[in-house]
């Protein structure tokens, strides 16, 4: 165990101010009814996720207007204060977005929006499951908005009410490699622990976390081998094509989601080598074009992330 694990952090007193404020004074809770939908001339959609039996339950309400945008979003829930904060933030983020845009709200964005400081995680790792819970609820909302059917899945952890697909998805999304990690992100296996592995004094089950983890890790390994088109060498030694792939991947992973949350986006126009420097020419799209911060804060953030992740000699030039 490391020092950071030994320190007693992660109880109420060390939650970020933002979570505390949202938990104390949530603004988007409540029910939306057919009358509200009529008033806003939209259609009311609601989804439920979780259960009171397992400790977390949420019902999300959305009113979708004629432009297919969410005009209002509210929630009702049963769960701890952090869930209230996360749900409130999610409801806020959903407003004025289309289903496709809501789909882009993933764990990383939602967790990022709950942070006080960009570099400090909002929650201790054993509470990641709460943010993930809200993300899963949003996913169901998007499915309903888009009219997609969800695949049926068997329940693996009965205490926390977690199904097989949720666990498999979490292992893939968060690159989980331990049983504890599954518990952190889904709460599966942390309560009675009977779903972790087969034991002689309990009735046998169809699925165990250990087997699921092994199976998904194996699949990930095989896919990883097939997919790795970004060569495993320093950025400065890559050719232009490889550089473009590496930059695209970094932007997709670390930058694009944040721009999209504010209704913007960016595209790469050209990449040029200029001595030791690599110049990246970009164009802002959507709300980002013409935004005052596009040539200051946002630009520095993009450049900072690329420099940190790829190469200190990278320059970003917006056109």
């Amino acid at each position: 165990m490391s020092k950071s694990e030994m320190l007693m952090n992660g109880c109420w007193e060390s939650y970020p101010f933002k979570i505390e404020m949202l938990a104390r004074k949530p603004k988007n809770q409540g029910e939306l009814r057919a009358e509200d939908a009529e008033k806003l001339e939209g259609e009311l959609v609601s989804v439920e996720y979780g259960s009171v039996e397992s400790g977390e339950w949420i019902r999300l309400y959305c009113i979708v207007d004629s432009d297919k945008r969410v005009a209002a979003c509210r929630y009702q829930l049963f769960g701890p204060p952090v869930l209230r904060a996360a749900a409130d933030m999610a409801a806020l983020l959903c407003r004025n977005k289309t289903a496709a845009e809501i789909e882009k709200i993933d764990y990383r964005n939602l967790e990022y929006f709950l942070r006080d400081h960009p570099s400090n995680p909002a929650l201790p790792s054993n509470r990641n499951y709460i943010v993930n819970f809200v993300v899963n609820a949003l996913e169901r909302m998007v499915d309903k908005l888009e009219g997609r059917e969800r695949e049926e899945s068997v329940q693996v952890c009965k205490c926390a009410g977690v199904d097989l697909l949720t666990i498999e998805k979490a292992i893939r999304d968060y690159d989980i490699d331990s049983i504890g990690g599954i518990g952190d992100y889904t709460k599966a296996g942390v309560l009675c622990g009977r779903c972790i592995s087969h034991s002689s004094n309990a009735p046998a089950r169809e699925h165990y976390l250990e087997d699921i983890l092994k199976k998904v890790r194996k699949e990930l390994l095989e896919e990883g081998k097939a997919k790795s088109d970004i060569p495993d060498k320093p950025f400065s030694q890559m050719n232009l094509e490889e550089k473009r792939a590496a930059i695209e991947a970094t932007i997709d992973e670390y930058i694009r989601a944040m721009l999209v949350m504010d209704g913007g986006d960016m595209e790469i126009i050209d990449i040029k080598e200029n001595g030791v420097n690599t110049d990246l020419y970009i164009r802002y799209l959507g709300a980002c074009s013409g935004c005052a911060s596009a040539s200051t804060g946002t630009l520095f953030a993009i450049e900072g992330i690329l420099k940190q992740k790829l190469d200190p000699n990278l320059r970003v030039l917006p056109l």
Partner: protein
Amino acid sequence: MQRIYLDNNRTTAVDPQVLAAMKPFLEGSYADLHALHSDGARSRKAYNEALEKIYATLHAGEKDSVFFCSGAAEANSTVFYSTYINFILSGRKNSIIIGEREPLSILQIAEFLESQGVRVHRIPINGDGVIEHERLLDYITPRTALVSVSMVDGESGAIEPIDEIAAICRRFEVPLHCDATHAVGKIALDLQSTELDYLTFSSETLHAPAGTGVLYMRKDSELLPLVWGGRSEAEAYRGGPLNIAGIAALGKAVELAVDSLEFEMEDVRDMRDMLEERLKEIEGVHTLVPWALRVPNTLLVAIEGVESEALLYELDKEGVSAYSYTVYPYGEWIRTALPEAMGLQRSLNHTTVGFALSRYNSEEEMERTAEAVKRAVEYLRSFMPSKESL
């Protein structure tokens, strides 16, 4: 605003008299129990006094032994390891029986011993939250190495039928161990009438600082130390210099708790009952464990549609410190939540909140607590759909 502390089944405020008893060993120099000089004599005097008090309050026999360690968790571990090595590894006995809802120190070591090949049976609780002692007969054999049942459940305050269990253990000549951390000072305890082989308890629930525990052992019982290095009988089962200040505090605390058991626990019971009555006025509040089967200071409720941590959070804002075992990852989740283990509806699993009183609480505080719970329940239920639309 003065905070209201209702988490007394975990730790309690230190009594001023207890503080006075330990003060001489905290200020200035204090000596080792085995030091020959006069300072050592002072320590020995305090140790002897504390030991006398504990023998007296437990009604322990002259030939029984009582020794000090760091707490009930260590004492429990000593009993279990010793049983494992003395009886099970040697092949004399083969299984251990514990209650389903023992403290974590016992559940975890039982699980560990299970992984080492020991057969561990767990006696379930009934609808009243009390161990079904008849079920002990399903598991017990003359080859059972140890039966371990807490005297009182720290979560619900349920008083376990120890006399009945002790009678069964006598019949099969199986040693019985009891964790009495939540029983000392709450219910009458007489080791002359209740025949136990091992009894353990801690200081922190007795208005003394945490860090001192007692292990009582009936004469002719077998035990191996868990911590080695004892220099005399006093340290025979627990090596290392003893915490004299803690022992002096525990001696005084036990004396106070047992002396005032009659009248003070009556007062605490009255306050608890008042809080219970007030909380029952709220719709959808279930008290777990019947009144007659509970220690006087504990009230555990399950409130429909109100999540435990959310309620604790709201109460904390109002200055009330309560507890819940069901908050992951900070609770003491024991395989199944208490409502489910008692056969109640599963939707109550995450709704239990407990209030454990002490002699330092007042009626006015109960009034304030009840009001705070009412407000919090109303607020938190506003996040839930009305019952009809669920």
